[in-house]
C-alpha cells in the first residue's frame, strides 16, 4: 500500500485543511448491502423474507453468507461447506457468483443515478453517492441537514423498492461514510464538525486503507478503534508509523478528500425473474413482468433515458423460449406505460408450454429528460395520448403511425413525407367569439350545397392512389367522351384544361398533364396523361 494507491489520503496537508478538519471532504452517502449475494439470490427467486429452506453462499468451499434460518441452526460465515451441511439439514448451498453480484450492484447504481449526480461502486456490496448537492432537495429556509436527510431516506426507499435492504450513512469523505455505513448505526447524516465523534467508536478494521500489518501493530499497542488513535500525540505519529502517519492522522479526524469515481453504465438494462413454479395463466406472468419492468424503468430513469424498444423473453418449461418485441411510440421510462402495451401482448399470447422465467430487455433507448409542463398543459391528456400511441405502435408497427410534412416537390406523390407524430400543441389560440351558439342554427333544412367554396376550389385531390390506374380514353376527334377503367366504361361529364407538372430530369424525369375530370360513377377524378407515352392514368379523387 503506498501513496499511489491512496492519493487523497496521502496528499500533502495544506494549512487550510488543518484549520477545518473534514470540512473540505466531499459529502458522501454510503449504502452498504449486507449479505448482498444472498439478497440478490432471494430477489431473483422472487421470495422476499425468509426462504422456506435455509440458504448459504459458498466460495472456494467456505460459507461467505448465510440467511437467518441457517444461522439459527449454527451455520456461520467462514465455516467449510461440509461443516455447514453437517450443522444444518437441508441447507441449500449456492456458489458465489461474483459477476452476477457485480451486475446487480451496477443495476442498483444505475437506478440511484436519479438521486445523485455521481454514484461509485465500492467493493462487492456498497455504493457511494455524491451528496454535495443534497441541500437542494430541501425547501428554502429549511433546517441545516434536512436535504441530506431527505436524500438518505429516498435512497434507502428506492433500494427497498428495488428489492434490497441496506444500511446508509451520510458523512464527509468516502472512507468515513463507507465505514459508518458498514460498521456504524446509520441514522441521521453526520455533520462535518461531528465526524471525529461519530468515528471514534469504529474499529480500525472498518478502514481497509490501513494495511493488515499496521493494524496488527496498532492492536499490539492497544489501539483498536479510531477514538484511541485520535488520542495519540500527532507529532509522534510520523516517527512511529512513517509514511502511514498521515493516513492515521486523517482517519482520526475523519478526513478523506478523495473524490468519488463515477460509475458510467455501458449497457442498456436487462432484468430477469425466475418464477417459483411454471405458470400457465396471464395474471401471475403479468405480476412478474411488472416487477422486472419497474426495475428496468428505474435504471433507465437514473440515466435520463426513455425506452423506445423492449424485448420480453419468456423461458418455457421444460425447454424453449418465446420472444416478444415491443415498439413504443414515444420514449418512456415509466413502467406503467410499458405495461399497457405488454399487457395486451401477454393476453393475446398463445404458448405451447408454461412459463418458468422471464427477462425484460431494453433494446433501444434515447435521451428523454423530464418534460417541464407549462401553464395550461393537461398531463392526463398527454398520458392518454402516449398510451394510445404505444398500443397502436406495438400492434401495427412503427411505420403505421405518422404525420406528414409538406415538401416543395412537383411530383405529386413526393410532395410530402411522413414524420414521427409528436402531437405537440402549438399555435393558434381560439379567437374570441369564434364559436357560435350551435342552438341558434337552423334545424329545418335537410339539404345543403354547393357546400363550400373551399371544398370546390381544392387544387389537389384528397385521395391519391398509391398506384395509378390505367385508363383507356374513348372519343372522337381528340375529345374524350368516356374512359374505360378496370373493365367499366364511364362517361366523362367534364374535363378541365391541363396543368403540366414536370421535372426531376436529374433523377427520374416525369412529364404529366393533369386534368380534373368529372366521370360518371367515379366522381371528380384527377387524371393525367403521361408525356412519355401519351397514356391516361387515374391518379386520385377530389373526394
Amino acid at each position, binding site marked *: 500500500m503506498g501513496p499511489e494507491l491512496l492519493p487523497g489520503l496521502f496528499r500533502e496537508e495544506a494549512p487550510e485543511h488543518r484549520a477545518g478538519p473534514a470540512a473540505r471532504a466531499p459529502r458522501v452517502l454510503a449504502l452498504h448491502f449486507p449479505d448482498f449475494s444472498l439478497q440478490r439470490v432471494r430477489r431473483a427467486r422472487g421470495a422476499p423474507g425468509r426462504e422456506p429452506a435455509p440458504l448459504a453462499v459458498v466460495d472456494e468451499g467456505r460459507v461467505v453468507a448465510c440467511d437467518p434460518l441457517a444461522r439459527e441452526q449454527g451455520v456461520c460465515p467462514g465455516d467449510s461447506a461440509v461443516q455447514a451441511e453437517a450443522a444444518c439439514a437441508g441447507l441449500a448451498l449456492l456458489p458465489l457468483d461474483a459477476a452476477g453480484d457485480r451486475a446487480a450492484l451496477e443495476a442498483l447504481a444505475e437506478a440511484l443515478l436519479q438521486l445523485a449526480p455521481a454514484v461509485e461502486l465500492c467493493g462487492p456490496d456498497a455504493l457511494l453517492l455524491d451528496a454535495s448537492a443534497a441541500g437542494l432537495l430541501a425547501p428554502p429556509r429549511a433546517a441545516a441537514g434536512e436535504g441530506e436527510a431527505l436524500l438518505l431516506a429516498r435512497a434507502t426507499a428506492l433500494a427497498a423498492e428495488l428489492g434490497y435492504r441496506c444500511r446508509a450513512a451520510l458523512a464527509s469523505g468516502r472512507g468515513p461514510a463507507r465505514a459508518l455505513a458498514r460498521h456504524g448505526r446509520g441514522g441521521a447524516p453526520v455533520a462535518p464538525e461531528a465526524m471525529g465523534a461519530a468515528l471514534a467508536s469504529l474499529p480500525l478494521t472498518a478502514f481497509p486503507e490501513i494495511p493488515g500489518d499496521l493494524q496488527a501493530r496498532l492492536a499490539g499497542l492497544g489501539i483498536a478503534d479510531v477514538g484511541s488513535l485520535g488520542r495519540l500525540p500527532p507529532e509522534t505519529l510520523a516517527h512511529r508509523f512513517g509514511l502511514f502517519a498521515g493516513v492515521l492522522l486523517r482517519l482520526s479526524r475523519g478526513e478523506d478528500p478523495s473524490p468519488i469515481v463515477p460509475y458510467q453504465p455501458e449497457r442498456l438494462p436487462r432484468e430477469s425473474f425466475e418464477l417459483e413454479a411454471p405458470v400457465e395463466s396471464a395474471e401471475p406472468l403479468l405480476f412478474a413482468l411488472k416487477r422486472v419492468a419497474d426495475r428496468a424503468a428505474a435504471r433507465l430513469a437514473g440515466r435520463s433515458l426513455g425506452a423506445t424498444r423492449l424485448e420480453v423473453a419468456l423461458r418455457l418449461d421444460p425447454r424453449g423460449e418465446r420472444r416478444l418485441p415491443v415498439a413504443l411510440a414515444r420514449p418512456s421510462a415509466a413502467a406503467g406505460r410499458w405495461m399497457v402495451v405488454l399487457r395486451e401482448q401477454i393476453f393475446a399470447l398463445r404458448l405451447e408450454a408454461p412459463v418458468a422465467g422471464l427477462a425484460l430487455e431494453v433494446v433501444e433507448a434515447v435521451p428523454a429528460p423530464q418534460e417541464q409542463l407549462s401553464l395550461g398543459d393537461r398531463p392526463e391528456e398527454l398520458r392518454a395520448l402516449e398510451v394510445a400511441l404505444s398500443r397502436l405502435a406495438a400492434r401495427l408497427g412503427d411505420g403505421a403511425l405518422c404525420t406528414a410534412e409538406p415538401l416543395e416537390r412537383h411530383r405529386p406523390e413526393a410532395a410530402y413525407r411522413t414524420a414521427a407524430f409528436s402531437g405537440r400543441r402549438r399555435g393558434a389560440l381560439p379567437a*374570441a367569439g369564434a364559436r357560435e351558439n350551435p342552438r341558434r342554427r337552423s334545424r329545418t333544412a335537410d339539404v345543403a*350545397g354547393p*357546400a363550400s367554396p373551399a371544398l370546390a376550389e381544392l*387544387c389537389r385531390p384528397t385521395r391519391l392512389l398509391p398506384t395509378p390506374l390505367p385508363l383507356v380514353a374513348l372519343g372522337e376527334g381528340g375529345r374524350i367522351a368516356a374512359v374505360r377503367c378496370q373493365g367499366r366504361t364511364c362517361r366523362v361529364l367534364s374535363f378541365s384544361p391541363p396543368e403540366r407538372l414536370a421535372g426531376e430530369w436529374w433523377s427520374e424525369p416525369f412529364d404529366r398533364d393533369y386534368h380534373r375530370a368529372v366521370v360518371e360513377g367515379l366522381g371528380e377524378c384527377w387524371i393525367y396523361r403521361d408525356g412519355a407515352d401519351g397514356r391516361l392514368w387515374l391518379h386520385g379523387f377530389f373526394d
Partner: protein
Amino acid sequence: MPLHRPAAGPAASPAGSPAAPPGGSGGPAGSRERIEELRERIRHIERRPPRRTAFEASGIEAVDGLLPGGGFPRGALSEIQGEPGSGKTALCLSTMARSMRSDGLAAFVDGRGELYPPAAAALGVDLARFLLVRPPASITAQGIATVLWSAEVLLGSGAFEVVALDLPLLRAVRPEGRAAVPPEVMVRRLVAAAEKGGAVGLWLSAREGEGAGGLRLPAAVRLEVRREPEGPRIRRIFARGAEVGHGA
C-alpha cells in the same frame, strides 16, 4: 372574485340591489354571462382550449345548418356516405381543421392508404397535430379487425377531438374462426369507445350500410355527399334529435 360562487336567484339578489356585483349587467343572467366571459378569458390567458361543447362544427355553414346541434355530436359516431370523388373526405378534413382551431388533435385511420396530406393542409389541417394511421391493411377479416381496433383505441383515448375512419370495402368480408369478433361487436365497441373518449367519430363509407360489413352503423348523424356539377351537395339522411330527412 370567486368563480364558483353559485349564481344568485332573483329572490336572493334582485337586480339593482346592493348585493348585485358592481359593474354587473343588472341581473342574474347578466352576472352569469359575465362570469362565463371571465372564465373564458382566464382559459385564454392560460392557453387552454375552451371547454368542450357537445358538438363539433364542420366549419361549413351550410353543413352545420343541417345538423341539430350545429355540428357533429361528440361521443358518437357519424357516418358520411358518398361515392368516390363525391367530396366526403373534404368534409371530414374540414371538420378536423375546425377542431384544431381549439388546439386539439385529430386522427385519420386510413384503411385504404389513399389520403393525400397536402390536400388536408390546404383545407386548414395542422399536419403537426394530425395523426395518420395506416395499418398494414388487407381486405381480410383480420385486416379489417385491425383497422377497427385502431379506431377504437383512438376514439377511447380521449386525446383526440376528431377521429375519422376510412375502410376498404367490407361487404364480402366475414370473420372466420372461433376467436374472430363479429362485425356487430366491433361496431358496438367503436360506439362505446366514442362515448368513453368524447371524440367525434367520423365514418367514411361509399354507400349506405357498407361501412360495417353490410351492417347498418348505429350513427348519430348520417350525411350523404353527392358530386354535382356546381360542387358537392350534402343531404342529411338521419340526425338524432332532428326530423328524418327527405330526398335531395
